[in-house]
């Protein structure tokens, strides 16, 4: 079920696109209406979700730390593992977002020897695959911008020439495409092959991976094997961005499969685990300074406590206290 359900979903998406475009001729629906709708769902969905998170209470100061807290001057603080001010939080967050630092600290516990001694060893495979996946995905997205921007900004030429640096074949092989496909495949196989990971895997863990693998495969097919008319594709995409969409039927069906997969990806994004992209920045365990000994953190859930101070108490019973000979502060 964990594999079959998302697999059926992805295959279904591909079949829908092929049937819709090839048999029913719905080029405008798949080329214009669905991409627009998906983009609106993507933007509005993310905005709504982030607003909801922004409104949520942060009751406690709960940064997860993994180093020495700021303490006495002669005790060395681990500044970026246990930040005590906003600057250190920003550095820690940047290391997390750009280098996946917490994943880098991933360990794996194994039993060694006859007596079954437990050993905690460093395990970098997930980190390597994760970082390769995310950065190749970024490169692929940047490369695609050449089909959206008119005129093409020159910085994109630089990305392309670096990505195709090896000049293998024609059209030039882009390394990012292969790395993306390889890393996504590794991340998927990991979920199937490692028993502990398979146990905690849900269909909605596999679906985005399969979707991305399908997107990468159709994209690679389109570039190197089943060619589409790239000029018509750019006409369509520039038309979408200038709000003057015009679709030509000359583009091959595989383009519509690709763009429908991407549309589903965008529309699915705000409701899925993919929201970790915004969520990482809004995680109280990561975006707070561990300064609860310096600054009081107010819990918004605290109800107003009814106080009756000693001064008020004395005010109420002063006469009786004086009669009974109990000392009072104010005569």
């Amino acid at each position, binding site marked *: 079920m964990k594999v079959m359900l998302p697999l059926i979903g992805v295959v279904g998406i591909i079949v829908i696109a092929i049937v819709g475009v090839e048999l029913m001729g719905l080029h405008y629906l798949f080329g214009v209406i669905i991409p627009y709708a998906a983009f609106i769902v993507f*933007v509005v969905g*993310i*905005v709504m979700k*982030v*607003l909801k*998170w*922004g*409104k*949520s*209470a*942060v*009751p406690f100061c709960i940064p997860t730390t993994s180093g020495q807290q700021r303490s006495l001057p002669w005790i060395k603080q681990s500044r970026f593992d246990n930040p005590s001010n906003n600057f250190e939080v920003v550095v820690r967050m940047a290391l997390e977002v750009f280098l996946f630092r917490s994943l880098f600290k991933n360990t794996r516990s194994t039993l060694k020897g006859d007596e079954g001694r437990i050993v905690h060893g460093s395990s970098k495979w997930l980190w390597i695959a994760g970082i390769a996946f995310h950065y190749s995905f970024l490169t692929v997205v940047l490369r695609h*911008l*050449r*089909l*959206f*921007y*008119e*005129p*093409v900004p020159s910085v*994109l*030429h630089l990305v*392309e*020439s670096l990505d195709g640096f090896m*000049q293998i*074949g*024609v*059209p030039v092989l882009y390394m990012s495409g292969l790395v993306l496909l390889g890393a996504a495949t590794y991340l998927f196989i990991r979920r199937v092959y490692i028993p502990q990971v398979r146990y905690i895997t849900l269909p909605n863990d596999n679906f985005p991976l399969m979707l991305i693998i399908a997107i990468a495969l159709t994209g690679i097919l389109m570039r190197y094997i089943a*060619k589409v*008319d*790239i*000029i*018509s594709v*750019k*006409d369509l995409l*520039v*038309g979408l*961005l*200038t*709000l*003057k969409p*015009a679709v030509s039927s000359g583009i091959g069906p595989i383009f519509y499969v690709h763009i429908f997969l991407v549309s589903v990806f965008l529309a699915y994004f705000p409701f899925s685990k993919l929201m970790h992209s*915004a969520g990482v*920045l*809004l995680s*109280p365990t990561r*975006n707070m300074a561990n300064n609860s000994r310096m600054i009081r*953190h*107010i*819990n*918004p859930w605290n109800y107003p406590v009814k106080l009756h101070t000693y001064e008020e108490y004395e005010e109420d019973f002063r006469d009786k206290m004086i009669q009974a000979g109990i000392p009072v502060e104010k005569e």
Partner: protein
Amino acid sequence: MSDKGKAIFVLVIFLAVAAFPFLYNRAASSASPKIELNTPVIDAMRVKQCILPKEKMRHDHMQLLNRWRDEVVRDGQREFGEIDGVKYEKSLQKTCLHCHSNKAEFCDRCHTYASVSVYCWDCHLAPKENKP
């Protein structure tokens, strides 16, 4: 306390990234480039045809040129074949550019539009064009 400020920060960045392509393309015209086929040599042809059908050339011209390069440079096979009694050579400069002598209007228009950087001219001399 809440993450209101951080949420607004995230949203501002996200919306700026999402809106940028639309703003950037405001002035863009989606008029696709038209390639210019009228050169003196083509105009003089009785039957206007390329060495391969138009669709085939449009999709595969880069692979054809790459294969030609390998065959000519590595194996010395220079002959492409004969079409209507005319022999054609596997040569970018002597065959392709003989007819399509207008690199700027023929090659570059689409390549610039689709941001394709070809490395033909790393070795080959770009043709000198007769500007009217």
